[in-house]
């Protein structure tokens, strides 16, 4: 284990898929993450809740190194993200290595971020062919399966602009799945959608949860969080102020700030 982590204290126990330790991040003088510790077990669903500016999205973006932490580390599948631990210090990885790490982690964005100049099919096969060297016919067949799974088989030749927001987000989920990631990150996947389109996207995520996909989801959909999450985490001011089983965190929050937030959004 060359990419192993400094602390190996939990030997014997099943190692979590994601381990976050002492994560800190500032933008200028504004501290967004102020020492976050978090474990995510393989095959489990974690929802991140909290008011805007509490650091949920930044935490999520540190997991696939779209943001560089100032201190602390994120470990995915036993490898520190973005750095290598050697001689008691963290060394920055070259871009090629970070790229390889990112292929294990899929991400779905609030604004979908489909490639507008490519068709739905091209959006799905681009990365598997270019990065994982999957033969084109295999990638096309796999794309068809994934589109069927999100209820969009037959829309292969459509351009993103021709689809509704809900359909675009489902394509974005299929695109992330096409890389066969071990972990999926969702950054407010339904916040940019019209209310009547939210359900179709949540349905797809619910199916993934039932299928045992490991996921970290930033969301404001409290009902959905209660239903699918194995673990709920409430952030405020860059710290985790409440975490545990969804029933405890959502229905009996001990923290004052969490109680105020939850009663406002429920």
């Amino acid at each position, binding site marked *: 284990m060359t990419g192993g982590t400094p602390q190996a204290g939990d030997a014997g126990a099943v190692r979590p898929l994601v381990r976050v330790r002492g994560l800190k991040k500032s933008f200028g003088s504004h501290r967004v993450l102020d020492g976050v510790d978090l474990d995510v077990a393989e095959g489990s669903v974690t929802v991140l809740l909290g008011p805007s500016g509490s650091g949920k999205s930044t935490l999520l973006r540190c997991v*696939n190194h779209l943001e560089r932490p100032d201190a602390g580390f994120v470990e995915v599948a036993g490898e520190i993200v973005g750095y290598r631990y050697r001689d008691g210090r963290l060394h920055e990885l070259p*871009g090629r290595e970070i*790229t390889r790490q990112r292929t294990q982690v899929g991400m779905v964005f609030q604004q979908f*971020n489909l490639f*507008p100049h490519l068709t739905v099919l091209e959006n799905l096969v681009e990365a598997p062919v270019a*990065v994982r060297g999957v033969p084109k016919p295999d990638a096309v067949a796999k794309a068809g399966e994934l589109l069927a799974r999100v209820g969009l088989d037959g829309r292969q030749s459509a*351009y993103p602009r*021709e689809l509704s927001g809900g359909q675009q987000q489902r394509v974005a989920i299929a695109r992330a799945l096409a890389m066969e990631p071990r972990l999926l990150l969702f950054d407010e996947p339904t916040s940019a959608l019209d209310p009547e389109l939210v359900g179709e996207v949540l349905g797809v995520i619910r199916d993934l949860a039932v299928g045992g996909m490991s996921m970290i989801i930033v969301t404001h959909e409290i009902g959905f969080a209660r239903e699918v999450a194995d673990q709920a985490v409430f952030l405020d001011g860059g710290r985790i102020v409440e975490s545990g089983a969804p029933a405890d965190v959502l229905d009996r929050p001990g923290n004052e700030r969490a109680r105020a937030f939850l009663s406002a959004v429920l």
Partner: protein
Amino acid sequence: MSTSAEPAEAIGISESPHRDLATQRVIPLRHPGRWIATAVVVVLAAQFVHGLATNPFYQWGRFGYWFARPVILRGLWVTLEVTALSAVLGLVGGVVLALARLSHNPVLRTVSWVYIWLFRSVPLIVVLLILFNFSALYRTLSLGVPFGPSFFRFDENKLATELVVATIGLSLNEAAYAAEVVRGGILSVGRGQREASAALGLPRWYQFRRIVLPQALRAIVPAYVNQLIGLIKGTSLVFYVSLLDLFGQVQTMSSTYPGDVVPLLLVATAWYVILTSLVSLAQYWIERRLRAGERR
């Protein structure tokens, strides 16, 4: 407003005779001013065309004589050659400069900024004349290890034909403007596109080539065609470094045949209009091809 809520009778429309009001078409408002303006413009345009055709000053016979003369066509060829070479070299240089300006390397960023600042500040004609007199500044040009032995040596006087000087001058100038056009295009592609491709694990160069550049081109093409049209007309300056392009030939012929100055200038005008029209046509075609994904 309270008045709008009153019954129809109150504002003079009783219900019974206007029962079919709901099925009536709206009669559009007349615009007499537009008709008057149109008439004035048409009369002025007719007068202008009539003047063009009948005023002997334009000497249309001489225009026909000069239009496709070999000497004019030779000049036209030079114009095309210089334009094409400078457009390609300028664009390549522009892409390199734009990438340098957007890079994380502060040295590359600064060098690129200084280059763009310098060449946008100095008039093209000054650049051309400096280059033309370059042989006075640097006697030889050699290729080799800096401050060490050289592998090739060029005698500047032999190397620098007028065509080379003109092309280098125009390319240097063009690259500075093209750099800003390309940079603007790249910046017009949202950050989300780059993040999405990074999250998929696409390598940086691949992200640029397959995701960012095709979208940037939609913003780059119209601006660069503008630039290209400026370049076509800018080539008329190479006359001052003794290169006989279209304008150069027209100038030379005018001094030999002073009576034909006007028809010769009209010949140059016609050819420049034809060239820019062809470029605009190409622009229309390229933009249509880049519009994939925009159709509804």
